[in-house]
Every structure is written in structure tokens, then in C-alpha cells.
């Protein structure tokens, strides 16, 4: 046998002419079949070597996967603009043990609906901080343009096997913005059955949030102080009840993931989420509409010659339950269909349906992934687009936040990705998002106003995985 350092001869195999060429062209690296090996490693004993190394030690960087992306979200009509850069780093200890660290920053600017209705008269609103006011022209949507925030969120998740049949994960996160802080922990445990074809996961998470709004906490249902009035300071402070409050969110989830066949994977989840504490949006108000017959029928109800707006108030508990079903199927030509449906219902009276369909079109090293998403929700029991002069003193809870009203939303997206030779991937995604709200169209003068304007937003994500 001819042996030298250049050529080590395997003196065994006669080649068929067909495979010879493949061999000559083949560069054997670990990248070639990394994905399928992962499974093989898991099932067919790396335990045999009892921890002995089988590779020269990889440099520390080789054990990390990074994913950096930025999302730009822009609503039309110069409403909210958000930029959210994220970096996610995963340290792989072995094929199933990993630590993921994620940092997201989030900057929001622009104007957001305050909850008040548009009017045939100009309207003036106190800023939530109590310092200054803003004017909304007749017929225009009342948007609070003080909306500006930055958020930083950090999370860490550790996942690892316990033994052949069990695995677990544990994590924590911290998120902070100038008026809100959230601290959470979560964990899950998974059981593999049927040769790992079935996975049952039980998970739980708990988060404790505190809210510290600008200008203090408004008293729900109290009147918004009238800007410029002689006793504004007195009225403003009478509408406050301290500076901060908190809430807790407890989630449980049970999920089943089932391998259907070599190309199909399915997941079913049931989740329940209980929120407890201050669930109101401190910046949202509700218009009180004059319902006494006369000139101002359907106009803003006035007290002492000034429009009356009251602060919204939501229940202090919410119990949400959701069922989720996802199927992923790879076609013979390597295209992937990803379909999911979610049904959610809660004790606020909201039901929602979400359908999401993605089709990944494999084009060699490139891929295109169109996406369609449809979401539909029914209104919360206490949602009212406005209240009336004869009703407002009788309501216990009310919100005019369009996010709690009857609404359909549509997302149409297209993602393009390019997988480079070293295994890194560059991708970009453009999506259009439209919200369509609906509800009662009011009475009298209010009928002339657009109470449920559509919102259209553009989302652009650019990311790089390496």
C-alpha cells in the first residue's frame, strides 16, 4: 500500500464509473450534511466515545450562530414609524444543548390614535404628561403625536436534553422603556415518544410588569382636564391616582408536535394566559357624544362649554385561551408550505381567528417566500367607539381603543433569501399590513365622521445569519 502524507490510500473499494466523478469533485466538509447528521448523532450513539473528542477543538466562534436583523415599520399618513434592530446569538454546546441570547432595541415615533372620535369642530387635547396640549382639525382623526418611545429587551434561553426521552428549557427576559418595565421567567419540559416522532411539551411563563406612565396614572372614567382652563392643574391632578401600577401575566401551554411522514410535521398547542392588574392603556381616552336632540346631536358633549373626554378603563383581569395548529410540508421539489391557524377567545368577549400561509419557493441557493396572513377579531364587551352624554356616568368599563374593536387585518409579504457558500444567509422581507375596523357608525353629526379609518403599514426586514 502506497502511503505518504499527501495521499492516504483506502485499499478497499472499487468504484463504479458513475460515482468516481462525484468523488473527484467532492469536498468533504462538515457543512455538507450537517442537518441530517444532527438527527443521526442523536439517535446513533455519540455516547460510545464517552466524551472523547473527535475533532480538533473548534474555535469558540465556530460554536456560535448569529442572526442580526432590522425591522422598519412605517404607517402611512406619517403615523407610527418604528425601527427595531435585533441581534440573536446562539451558543451550541452539542446538537441539542444551546444557549440563546437576544437583544432587541425598538424606537417608535409618530402619532397614535387617542381613542377620541373625529369631530366637525376642531378639538384640543391635554398631553398625557399634563404639560401642553395638541390640536386636531375638524374632520381629522385625533392622533396623539407625543408618542415616542424606545425600548430595550434582553432575553436568555437555555435548552438541553435531560435524557433520551426528555428535554427542558429555561429562560428569562427583561424589557425596559421609559414608562414600562417587564421581568419574566419561562420554562418548558418536553417528552419524546414513538422514536421521537411525537413530542409533548408543557410550558409555563410568568411575567411581572410595572407601568409608570407620563403624567401619572389617570383614574379610569374620570374627565380629561381641559387644556387652558383656569383650574387645569387642579383638574389634572384630580384625574390621577398615583404614579405607577403593575400587572402579572401567567401563561401555560401544552403542545404536541407530530412527525406525520418524512416531509410533514404538525403541531397542536393549547395555551391559557391570565393577566392580572393594571390592564388599561393610560394614554387612551373616550369621546362623550351629545345625544340630546338639538343642534349638537351627534357632536361632542360639552360641560361648561368644553368637550368632555373620559379616560378609558378596562377590567383588571383577563383570561385568554388559544388553540393553535401548524403544518409544515416539503414538496418533492423542495418547496415548503407552512400553514397555521389560531383560534383565541377570552373573557373580555374577544374571539379571533388567524390564518397564516407561507410558501417557500426554492431556487437553488436563493429562495422566495410569499406570505399571506388574515386576522379577524370580534370586539371586547366593553369596547365602545364613543359613549354618550346619557350613558357615560353609567359605564363601569369602557375603551375606544380600535385594537379591542371589531377588526380584520391582512398581511401580504414576500421574503427573499440567499444562502451563501459558508452557510451564512442574507435575507430581506417586505410586507404590507392593513387594518380594517368596523362598528356602529354613530348618529347625528357623528355619522359624517370617519370613525373606522383603515391603517396601512409597510414592514421591511433585512437580516443576516452567520
Amino acid at each position, binding site marked *: *500500500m*502506497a*502511503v*505518504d*502524507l*499527501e*495521499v*492516504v*490510500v*483506502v*485499499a*478497499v*473499494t*472499487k*468504484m*463504479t464509473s458513475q*460515482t*468516481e466523478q462525484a*468523488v*473527484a469533485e*467532492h*469536498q*468533504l*466538509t*462538515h457543512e*455538507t*450534511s450537517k*442537518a*441530517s*447528521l444532527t438527527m*443521526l*448523532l442523536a*439517535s*446513533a*450513539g*455519540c*455516547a*460510545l*466515545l*464517552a466524551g*472523547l*473528542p*473527535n*475533532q*480538533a*477543538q473548534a474555535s469558540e466562534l465556530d460554536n456560535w450562530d448569529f442572526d442580526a436583523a432590522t425591522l422598519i415599520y412605517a404607517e402611512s399618513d406619517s403615523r407610527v414609524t418604528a425601527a427595531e434592530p435585533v441581534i440573536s446569538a446562539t451558543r451550541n454546546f452539542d446538537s441539542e444543548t444551546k444557549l440563546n441570547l437576544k437583544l432587541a432595541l425598538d424606537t417608535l415615533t409618530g402619532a397614535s390614535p387617542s381613542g377620541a372620535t373625529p369631530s366637525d369642530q376642531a378639538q384640543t387635547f391635554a398631553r398625557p404628561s399634563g404639560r401642553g396640549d395638541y390640536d386636531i382639525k375638524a374632520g381629522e382623526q385625533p392622533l396623539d403625536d407625543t408618542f415616542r418611545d424606545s425600548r430595550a429587551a434582553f432575553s436568555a434561553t437555555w435548552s438541553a436534553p435531560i435524557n433520551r426521552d426528555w428535554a427542558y428549557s429555561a429562560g428569562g427576559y427583561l424589557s425596559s422603556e421609559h414608562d414600562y418595565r417587564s421581568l419574566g421567567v419561562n420554562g418548558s419540559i418536553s417528552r419524546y415518544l414513538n422514536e421521537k416522532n411525537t413530542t409533548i411539551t408543557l410550558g409555563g411563563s410568568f411575567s411581572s410588569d410595572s407601568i409608570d406612565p407620563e403624567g401619572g396614572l389617570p383614574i379610569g372614567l374620570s374627565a380629561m382636564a381641559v387644556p387652558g382652563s383656569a383650574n387645569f392643574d387642579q383638574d389634572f391632578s384630580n384625574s390621577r391616582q398615583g404614579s405607577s401600577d403593575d400587572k402579572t401575566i401567567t401563561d401555560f401551554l401544552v403542545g404536541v408536535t407530530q412527525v406525520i411522514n*418524512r416531509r410533514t410535521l404538525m403541531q397542536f398547542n393549547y395555551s391559557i394566559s391570565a393577566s392580572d392588574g393594571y390592564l388599561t392603556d393610560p394614554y387612551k381616552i373616550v369621546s362623550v357624544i351629545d345625544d340630546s336632540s338639538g343642534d349638537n346631536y351627534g357632536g361632542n358633549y360639552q360641560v361648561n362649554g368644553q368637550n368632555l373626554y373620559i379616560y378609558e378603563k378596562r377590567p383588571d383581569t383577563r383570561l385568554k385561551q388559544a388553540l393553535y395548529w401548524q403544518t409544515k410540508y416539503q414538496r418533492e421539489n423542495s418547496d415548503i408550505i407552512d400553514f397555521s391557524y389560531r383560534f383565541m377567545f377570552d373573557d373580555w368577549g374577544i374571539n379571533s381567528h388567524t390564518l397564516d400561509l407561507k410558501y417557500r419557493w426554492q431556487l437553488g441557493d436563493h429562495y422566495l417566500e410569499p406570505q399571506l396572513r388574515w386576522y379577524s377579531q370580534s370586539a371586547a364587551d366593553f369596547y365602545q367607539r364613543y359613549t354618550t352624554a346619557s350613558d357615560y356616568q353609567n359605564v363601569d368599563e369602557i375603551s375606544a381603543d380600535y385594537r379591542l374593536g371589531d377588526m380584520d387585518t391582512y398581511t401580504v409579504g414576500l421574503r427573499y433569501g440567499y444562502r451563501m457558500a459558508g452557510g451564512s444567509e442574507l435575507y430581506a422581507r417586505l410586507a404590507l399590513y392593513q387594518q380594517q375596523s368596523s362598528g356602529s357608525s354613530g348618529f347625528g353629526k357623528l355619522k359624517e365622521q370617519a370613525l373606522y379609518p383603515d391603517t396601512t403599514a409597510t414592514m421591511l426586514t433585512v437580516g443576516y445569519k452567520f
Partner: protein
Amino acid sequence: MQQDNLHGFSESKRLLSIAKMNNPSGHPMPELSFLAADQSSAGFLLQFQAMASTCELLIDLPESHWALAEQLALQAVRETWRIEFKFSRYRTGNWHDKVHQKRGHWQNLDEESARLIAFADQAWQLSDGLFDITSGILRKVWRFDGSDRLPEPEQVATLLPHIGRQKIQWSLPEDDGVNSKPAQLYLPEGMELDFGGVGKEYAVDRVLGLSLSLLQKAQPDVACSLLVNFGGDIACSGPRANGEPWKVGIEAPDREGKEAALLSLTGGALATSGDSQRYLLKEGKRYSHLLNPKTGWPIENAVRSITVAAPTCSQGGLISSLALLQGAGAENLLKQTGLKYWLLSA
């Protein structure tokens, strides 16, 4: 110094001395050479005999590191000979012999044997019982010497009751922090364990692993890369010290030593199962040496040999064996694993 003329190599060679107790099989002493084609391609080559093969360890170190190369070489030889002796079916007084002395009783297993049995067990499950470490007993009636002497069906049938992994019992070690219990094995009378299907690949991985551990401790001042080659079962530590891939030639027997193709190996292992020399031929029908443990007769339509690239040699060997046992379905299984493979059909 003959090789100077043949290859244009400069070479210096040392015979290593290994104590008798570490050479229970009485092999000839190993040779460690330093070979240099030129500055950029030089290194140590260890050659020794074990497991009916020529075994090699290539150590990519400059000539100034003779001491470390010798240390690596001695460790590799001792470990290989240890494994060979421990699991050999042909020796007395070794582990294999002792285990078979205690047939019919529960006995404790050391960790290494338990790991090997567990590994073979996974192969047994993955192959639906075709890969079976109790099937070696069929050698008593099947001799694959290229002749036409097939056994009588009755001869085969009398062995079948002694074959079947499901007939042996064993338990994993248990350690709950308070009490620990070693792995245990119950081997019924008349049955035999055969580690021939996993031993060599395991030895390749062990030698690479121990060498890498030793290098981690020794911390040489230069990068060192390793390749282990036991008669075609190969594992390497990564690319060569100069960053180039290892070049591995696959030899075509009918082309007299010429490499049919060159592979570039930058990591992982290659393992080959099958042997085109071992078969019986009767009335034009070729009987492969691969026996189905359920029938005691050769696998139909077996391909001749399969080479698989995998992260470790043991895994490569496992997959190539499993594929070989699929008969005509070999290529199908190989494709499904997603691993690189080379197949020689009958």
C-alpha cells in the same frame, strides 16, 4: 532509505519498543517515520499491525517534535492492541473469553463494554434486527473462502435458536447519586457475542480521541493535525496543520494500486463495510458473506461494499453496515441519511 528513490521523500525511521504486557497478541514492533516531501508537506507516520490490518497514524508535526510524536504513537499502539485483545474471539483469558465463561449467569459489565453493547443495540433497533451482535456464531457453518461449499439447511437451522439480540438481557448502569449499580449482562448458554462489526471503527475513534486529549495537555507550540487509518477506516481531527485538506485516495483493486479518485477530507471520518473477497459462488449464484440473523442465510442482492463519510468512524461504520444489510435497499437508506457515500455494487 529505499523510499527516497521511489517517492522523492527524505525519511528517517525509528522502531518503537512496546512492553510484552502491552502486546498480548505478539505483533511486530511498530515503526514511526518522519517523512518530508518538501517544507510544506512533512510529518510523522506510525505504522503497526492490528485487527488483521495495517494501522496508521499520521501526525502533522515538524521534525523537531519527535518526542511528542513518539508519545502519541505509543499511546495509539497500546490502545489499539488493548481493544483488539479485549474483544477478540480467538483468545483465552481476555474479556471476551471471561464473559463467555459466565454464560447463564448475570454478570457485571465494565463501562466500555456496556457502551459498545449499547451502541450495537441501537444498530439492532435501527435495522429491525438485522444488525445483531449474536450472529457471529453462524461462522461455524459458513466459510466464505470463494468456494462453492454451502452449508446444509439443517446445519444453519440448529444455530438459529442461539441467535437473536432479544434473547440476551442487559441493563444500563444506574447511578442516582446515592446508589450506583454497574451495567449487567445475561448471556444465555450457547450464545456468542461478536464485536467484529464495531471494534475496528471504535478503535479508530478511540485513538483519535486519546491523541487529541494528549495534544490538549501537551499544548505543542505548533498546530498539530491527525489522521488515523486502520485498513481504510479513517478519522481525522480536522484539516491539516497548513490548512489544506487531507487527500485520501480510494483505490480500485482492478487498477493495481492506482487511486480511483482523491477525496479531500477536512474533518470527520470514513468507514467501509463489505469485502468483495469474501463470498461463496455456487451454480452462478453469488452468496455474500452478510448473513441475515433471522434466517441464517446470506442477504439477497447485497452490494459489495459501502464507504460512508460521517463525524466519527463508529457512526460511519454503523451506517455502512446497516445499509449493507438492506440488500438492494442499501442505496435508498444511504440517500435518506443525507451522508456522503460511495457504493460498489456486486
